[in-house]
């Protein structure tokens, strides 16, 4: 098979950043479905409308794990509105590209972070 993953994907897959859970998270988002082969949960701590801390857990292929890892890096410190706008293409671009067949994996993170932010906003209402 082609070496389908960029060095950046491999770096984030083999050394994923921000792995784990936040016990007292302000928001949590879980997306995906084990039947389809990927599930991601993201935990956020929010301060001044900004993402102060973030952790994730992902079940899935290398693309899914790397997308999760880099996604957490991107949004950390960003405002919630900025994080809401993050697209799958942003993540794929940041990774130096993903194979066409794996593009759906980069959805995982953007969907999960949105869900976590919505969760947070619901809680503070």
């Amino acid at each position, binding site marked *: 098979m082609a070496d389908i993953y960029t060095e950046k994907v491999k770096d984030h897959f*083999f050394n994923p950043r921000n792995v784990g859970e936040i016990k007292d998270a302000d928001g949590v988002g879980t997306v995906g479905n084990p039947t389809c*082969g990927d599930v*991601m949960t993201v935990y956020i701590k929010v301060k001044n409308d900004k993402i102060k801390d973030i952790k994730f*857990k*992902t*079940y899935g*292929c290398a693309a899914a794990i790397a997308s999760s890892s880099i996604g957490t890096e991107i949004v950390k410190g960003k405002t919630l509105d900025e994080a809401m706008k993050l697209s799958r293409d942003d993540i794929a671009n940041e990774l130096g590209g993903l194979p066409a067949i794996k593009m759906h994996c980069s959805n995982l993170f953007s969907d999960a972070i949105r869900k976590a932010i919505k969760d947070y906003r619901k809680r503070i209402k």
Partner: protein
Amino acid sequence: MKRIYMDYSATTPVDKEVIDEMAPYFGKYFGNPSSIHSFGRDAYDAIEKSRSKIADILNADADEIIFTSGGTESDNLGIMGVAYLNKDKRKRKGNNIITSSIEHPAVLETCKYLEKQGFNIKYLPVDKYGLIRIEDLEEAISKDTFLITIMYANNEIGTIEPINEIGKIANKYDVLFHTDGVQAVCKTPIDVKKLNIDLLSISSHKIYGPKGVGALYIRKGVKIRSLTHGGGQEKGLRSSTYNTTGIVGLGKACELGKIRLKEDMSQLKYLRDELIKNTLKIELSYLNGHPIKRLVNNANFCFEAIEGESLNMMLDEKGIASATGSACSSKNLQASHVLTAIGLNPEKAHGSLRLTLGRENTERDIKYIDNVLPDVVENLRKLSPLWDR
């Protein structure tokens, strides 16, 4: 870093002796076996010698062997060749083919294609070990059935089908029996006469021969139609200039396979059993396929809460070459049809790992895997939201 290859069911390296045997046919005995001159005669003789060696491992006769470009072509030719001839002959024997639901795509996709062409295909289910049930087969047979095509041994989970019983049924109902022997050849003794096999597919690159060559055993008297058209080589069944080097390599690989069969089998079985024993110590890990009726070189596991492509990559990083039935590593994002057919839910199927052993594996390799695999699994589980222990 030392690399450990444990993907012998995907393909094998070419044996040193096979390479040596082929070598003179590239530049020296390079003639076209169909040519009248001395260059042609040298090549012709090599091909016929190879044909005998292939026949030998099946207890077949040399003139029952024809050469192809690999397992896929052999499967296509064996199945479509019989089907189309049957169609031509005013539907002498109906239009029903029986196969299993765990065939290799070379058989399965061929059957699906024939289905679109108006043939009626019955896909037998398998039990949790991957075995078809003889009762199902007998029940599926009707007077319209002209062909049974069921693999000798499965490429993913290693299960060996009840070929002897299938052959008896085929014989009893006077139905042709094709079997995809690609994974079984040189890993278990095969006797096409005793087993009532009418057609059997072989692929060279799975048995330490070169890639791009294969063979189809066609029992004397069984008629098939060719799929390609041209110069009329192989009694008109397979046109194209003979791939002399490839054929010589396949012949030598069979010769060696026959000589080494016993030794290979006991060595592989020993290593495989060690590997299975070690691996099943990992929490929530399972063996796929039949515990005993399985290829001597096949170990296939599921690990709960992790995904196979990630596992393959982590192992690759540690120098271990492995495979998986996970959807994520397939072209169509579907989990393996074999793992699904034995009843695994997609989640489990995603977490499968196939390790297939070969002649060059040693006890040290098994030990190395035992050192590495539990940690890799644990690390992936730490990452997994599905793992909450």
